[in-house]
């Protein structure tokens, strides 16, 4: 069972190392003449001002939180989806109750305006 996953682990390692090799190749072959102007952050020719890790809109946090909830929901749905033809109507209703509760939450956040981007 688990030995099926060994080649996948090798593949993942190779893919990651490949990315490293390609970038390393770029360092090896490319020129390297850094100077202050070149290395300063790009701001359309202006001197960079203030800190670039600035405050940002709270809605991005909201999106992240909503994402976690719904992604978890998907994770719950996966095993249910695979065995649905065996658990039949009972399983279907059980999951619909669960989905229904989440949909109520979804409607609530919709009405509250968490999904608005004006």
């Amino acid at each position: 069972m688990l030995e099926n996953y060994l080649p996948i682990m090798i593949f993942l390692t190779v893919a990651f190392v490949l990315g490293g090799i390609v970038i390393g190749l770029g360092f090896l072959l490319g020129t390297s003449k850094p100077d202050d102007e070149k290395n300063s952050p790009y701001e359309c020719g202006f001197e960079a001002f203030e800190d670039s890790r600035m405050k940002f809109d709270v809605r991005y946090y909201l999106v992240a939180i909503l994402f976690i909830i719904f992604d978890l929901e998907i994770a719950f749905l996966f095993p249910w989806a695979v065995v649905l033809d065996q658990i039949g109507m009972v399983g279907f209703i059980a999951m619909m109750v669960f989905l229904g509760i989440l949909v109520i939450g979804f409607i609530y956040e919709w009405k509250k305006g968490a999904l608005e981007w004006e």
Partner: protein
Amino acid sequence: MEFLISLWEALPYELQYLIWTMIKIVAIVLPMMLLVAYYTYAERKIIGYMQVRVGPNRVGPKGWLQPIADALKLMFKEIIIPANANKLLFLMAPAITLAPALAAWAVFPFDEKLVFADINAGLLYILALTSVGVYGVIIGGWASNSKYAFLGTMRSAAQIVAYEIAMGFALVGVLVAAGSLNLGEIIRAQEGGIFSWFWLPLLPLFAVYVISGVAETNRAPFDVAEGESEIVAGFHVEYSGMAFAVYFLAEYANMILISALTAVMFFGGWLSPFQGWPVLGPLFDWVPGFFWLVIKTGFFMFLFLWLRATFPRYRYDQIMRLGWKVFIPITIVWIAVVGLAVVYQVPWWFD
């Protein structure tokens, strides 16, 4: 030759296994790289002709060597590391994006028996890996320590995350219909010609999946993350040379992956469209399954370019509205519909 065989047999089993696995990995990754290279060429050519231009035609006959020239040029360019950047993360981020885009192919069934690792949880693995890709974007944009990169990161992370939910729900619909996580089993569940494939019973999910796929890869018309007219290039504005090339590679590899997955989950993968039909069925029996898969994948790859040439860019609030307020409700409703159809074993698809 005999010497080589005896040498091979003298190797310990583990080493043989490792070498054999490596050969298989190279056999997947190398064609993938070539495909990416010529996909960029095809993109420029096709969009060129759609806009009544010729596209690249100088390097080699009809511009055939253009992608090679591009790759060589990028290789010899300086990789600039911005002064305030977090160096380690800055250089790691492209690799974090590329690795899942390539490794996702590990469970992909290219033909009836042609699959690198035939695991049970194939679809789950792919969903997990494609989710990792967003880390590369976030880390890269944050590590650059540049305002444009940061803004681009926020946008693209929020967008990818929003569409990932719609995509995940669409996948659940496919799972309900197929009853298995294994990609090969999903294809086998669609046997019986073009009208037995899942695109028909799962039509809304199919549409949601394809459009979410375009949004996931940050492609036009959903490419506000790199909107060149407002935030120049988004999260990879500080990347140059090969570091940039790796991001680029990952983006195109992801597009190919999404196309191929659409072909597998909604269009029957390696299955012939005429399977089981009276005259046409036997007539096309000799065509290898891989060929059908390539045609289907090619169509969706073309679709990506076609969309880019046709549609103007969406506004950001429109993108978020489409993802949250349209796609998620549609997918939830359709999961319930498909679930009912499976429970009652509605004929033709689910009996």
